[in-house]
């Protein structure tokens, strides 16, 4: 059942409105299916890092006796990390603070935007070189834009050594 009407402003053979609508629907459904067929797998593939499970591990940081009471020291360490297709030796460090027998490990990333902080021994301050964030010895914000105190890592003392828990 086809009829000629002026719907397309041409002299063409035009299908009945019912058939036009039905075919339009089928075309729409097929197109949506095709879009889903490509967008779905590609989104899952690109978004797969979101599903990656982080693995935690204990790292030996220092001998308890090597850290003087009241001091803050930067301790570097490295971990083998699965970095995409490769296994890489990633370098990290923490600022280890000792007060009597209590240890704290501050993450060196400024809580503002992640720049690496430096410790100024004389002023007893952690300074962020990027936007002027300042933290005290306890990691609390003294001035500048950082929204919260320095992040700390989980520690344990075992067999006379300080161990740090790190998730990568």
């Amino acid at each position, binding site marked *: 059942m086809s009829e000629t009407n002026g719907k397309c402003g041409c*002299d063409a053979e035009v299908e009945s409105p019912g058939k036009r609508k039905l075919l339009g629907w*089928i*075309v729409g459904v097929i197109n949506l299916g095709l879009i889903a067929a490509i967008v779905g*797998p590609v989104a899952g*593939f690109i978004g797969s890092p979101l599903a990656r499970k982080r693995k935690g591990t204990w790292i030996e940081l220092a001998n308890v006796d090597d850290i003087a009471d009241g001091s803050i020291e930067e301790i570097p360490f490295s971990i083998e990390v699965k970095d995409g297709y490769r296994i890489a030796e990633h370098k990290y460090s923490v600022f280890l603070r000792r007060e009597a027998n209590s240890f704290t490990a501050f993450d060196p990333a400024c809580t503002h935007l992640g720049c690496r902080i430096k410790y100024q021994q004389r002023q007893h301050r952690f300074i962020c070189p990027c936007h002027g964030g300042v933290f005290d010895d306890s990691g609390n914000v003294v001035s500048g834009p950082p929204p919260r105190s320095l992040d700390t890592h989980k520690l344990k003392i075992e067999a006379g050594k300080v161990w740090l828990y790190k998730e990568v």
Partner: protein
Amino acid sequence: MARETLTPESPVEHPSPPTTPEEKLERDRPGLKEWLDLRLGWWGFVRKNLDEEMPPGVGWWQTLGNLLLTLLIFQFTTGVALAMFYTASPEGAYQSVKHITYEVPLGSFVRGLHIWGSSAIVVVMVLHTLRVFFWGSYKKPRELTWVVGVLIFQVILAFSFTGYLLPWDQKAYWATVVGTRIAGTVPFIGDSLVVLIRGSEEVGALTLTRFYAAHVMILPAILLALVGLHLYLVRRHHIAGPVVPQRGKPVPFYPNQLFKDAVVLLFGIGIVIYFALAFPPSLEALADPTGTDFAPRPEWYFLGLYELLKIMPPGYELLATIIIPGMISIGMLILPWLDRSKSRHPAARQWIIFMGLAVILLIGVLTLKGILETPVHPEGGHSAVANFVPLT
């Protein structure tokens, strides 16, 4: 009273009532949807394309162009996704493709879509070209549509040649060593040409980065421009219609032809998805320039050229590497001017049809010979051909 004193030069203060829906919308402060449509003219553009008149007799054979376009969009999408995980260095390429294939969720499927998609593109492109050839649709006024199509054909072959190296396994490496060596047979400048293509005397890190840059930057830019021009020309000169004009009135593109397009897309893309799932990609051993037990083989659609080289007697190599492929390419490019007949009917252009059939037969037989002689790889059949052979 003031209106009566107006002269023709004086502006009319009160505008006349709007006459078209567009004018009415302009004055009635349109909503966002109407405003966007007024500015972009999107709906008018869509309508114009949906209402495009098709000559009677246009049908399933005219769906191949749309399928090809959709396959290219799929290829582009999976390619971008793969590039996010790929590393173009001899140290990283193989490991990153291995990571994509065996470790990243959906990586095997996305890579499978890309690999099988490339084969599907070649198949559909050949069918599309053959349809236009036998229908004589390249004739006046569609000469440039054909020429641009032939250029797209060559760009796509360049895509598969450059993409083949990227996994940096034995198959990729040796196919590229042999493939690039073909340029060395060009008289006088051959050796320099090989260095220029490889980026070095030997296939190595610079070849990989060169091929990668071509595959993901240069060729996509060229392809995008050519496909845009091709589509513009198709719309400018419209679909050619059957060789013998059919009786009846023209039919608008929507809904019948678009419906046929959608059905073909469903099957075409469905087949690629099936192959990606049923024959997942894998990797051969890491490229080894010192390996002597590996017989280099190209992707199946280059097997015709490969076999041609094999059957050529010594001393006639240039014929297989440059002269015959070159003549076929140039012949295709100038086809609309080689074929002087006014009629599109095959009977009216017998020698062109004969030449075309000869070329198709040559490539077809050589490709088939190559496929049949492809050994199924002992490691489980990794190449597209090796995967395909058990089915035939």
